[in-house]
């Protein structure tokens, strides 16, 4: 399911003295089965874009096409539910959305709203718990007794239970320890790879963008500045820092090596593995020359 933005603009509180323009002239396409990263400085409009992806907000100008539904300023609120089932959003600090008595019921809450029975929902919860790294013993526990990281996992399972075609993640690893971070990101990546899920990731972690994403959109002051493959965009470290963004640690290290030893990395290494492999090749050829 493709999601397409055409000339989208959004203004908060239009017609009041508190009005502020959050988005303007946004054109972008999120392709089916892609892993798109949306990056940008704080206040660049990332979260507002995100809320357009399942019609929580309607554009004040332009149109958003989600699958075969077109959302404009004048679209009715009827029938948005089926849309929301297809596009699941994991909001920032999703643990704040837990409310049921047990973990199982909370995960089953979403599916129940979309017409499944309580039993089917609980069954789904039982299947999902191992996927997010918890075991079945959590089913009957209260979500409020869990640790922050465990609550986060339950909340994510609650969104996955909707079986969305598009999964939108708003800084899913903010505030987690490095281990939990990696586990959760790997889990999303597995879903993307194995189930052909479309993933949209909003993040400040450039390392995550480099490791997982195949498309990258840079937002600044409410509009799209650039988009493309992370490998292309990370070449322009200077431009990125003018957008108050950084490059992944691998790219930074590669740039330092380029300066110091006049090495040329082509293609630009994005992951540690790629970097290590290229360095190994270069050292090997150097050693060959030396002999």
């Amino acid at each position, binding site marked *: 399911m493709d999601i397409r933005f055409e000339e989208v603009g959004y203004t*908060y*509180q239009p017609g*009041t*003295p*508190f009005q502020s323009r959050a988005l303007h002239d946004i054109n972008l396409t999120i392709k089916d089965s892609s892993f798109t990263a949306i990056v940008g400085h704080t206040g660049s409009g990332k979260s507002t874009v995100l*809320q357009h992806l*399942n019609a*929580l907000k309607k554009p004040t100008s332009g149109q958003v096409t989600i699958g075969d539904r077109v959302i404009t300023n004048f679209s009715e609120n009827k029938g948005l*539910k089926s849309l*929301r*089932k297809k*596009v*699941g*959003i994991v*909001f*920032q600090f*999703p643990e*704040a*959305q*837990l*409310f049921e008595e047990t973990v199982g019921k909370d995960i089953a*809450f*979403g599916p129940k*709203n*979309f017409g499944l029975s309580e039993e089917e929902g609980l069954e789904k919860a039982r299947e999902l718990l191992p996927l997010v790294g918890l075991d079945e013993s959590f089913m009957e526990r209260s979500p*409020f007794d869990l640790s922050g990281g465990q609550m986060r996992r339950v909340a994510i399972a*609650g*969104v996955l239970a*909707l079986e969305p075609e598009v999964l939108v993640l708003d800084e899913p690893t903010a505030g987690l320890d490095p281990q939990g971070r990696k586990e959760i990101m790997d889990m999303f990546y597995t879903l993307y790879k194995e189930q052909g899920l479309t993933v949209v990731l909003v993040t400040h972690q450039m390392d995550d963008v480099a490791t997982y994403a195949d498309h990258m959109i840079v937002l600044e002051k409410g509009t799209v500045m650039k988009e493309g493959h992370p490998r292309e965009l990370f070449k322009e470290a200077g431009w990125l820092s003018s957008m108050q963004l950084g490059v992944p640690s691998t790219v930074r290290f590669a740039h330092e090596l380029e300066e110091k030893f006049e090495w040329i990395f082509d293609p630009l290494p994005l992951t540690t593995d790629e970097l290590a492999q290229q360095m190994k090749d270069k050292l090997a050829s150097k050693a060959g020359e030396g002999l």
Partner: protein
Amino acid sequence: MMEKLIFGRYIPGDSFIHRLDPRAKLMGAIWFIIIIFLANNWLTYVLLTVFVLTAVKLSEISPKFFINGVKPLIWLILFTVILQILFTSGSTIWFRLGPIVISQEGLLNGVFIFMRFVLIIFMSTILTLTTMPLSLTDAIEYLLRPLAAVKVPVHEIALMLSIALRFVPTLMDETEKIMNAQRARGIDFGEGNVYQQMKAIVPLLIPLFVSSFNRAEELATAMEARGYKGGEGRTKYRQLEWVSRDTMIMVAFGLLSAALLVLRT
């Protein structure tokens, strides 16, 4: 929904009214609500209207805001006005149908009630639009201070007020976030019958309460860590300063009250 709410919001500015001492503004607004009940004829209402319009002008805020402030209450106002018109008996009767009588006195009463509502709303809107919530709590704390003599915990009330005011926007944001998260999980807020609508509130209320509890605990810890031990022996960072223009405003209110007492019939 909440975006439309103008009443109770502060608009930064630097007008004559903005610069007044919050105590003067608060006392003025309360005093105005009391003396408006003195007015009972055309002359007194015209006087009050001129007074309020002058204040609106001095606040340098677009009149649109004040009209927006009246809008949410317009049905309540009209309801009261219509009741007044229909059920006031008088000597000059224009229309009669069973117990319903429309008299000249009734119509006049209706108009006066309408003006009373609008003037009170305008006056309190001036207060909230031109005064920062925190200055307002400072003013309330100051004006309540005499009550400390009769063991009213004035400092605690003021502290709670200022914390509450500080967290209103934070909680509104939080509400919006949780609403969005639950909407994304398939909840329709404000749809279906009353029972369904009430049920939809639960997934919003529980997380909101839980997060308030957590927030309260964190805030209390942070306050203790910074050496807060209660009201005793504290100094104030924000000092209120009463200057001549504040006295002037009080004098203006005094003159207005005197004029009303003279002119009322």
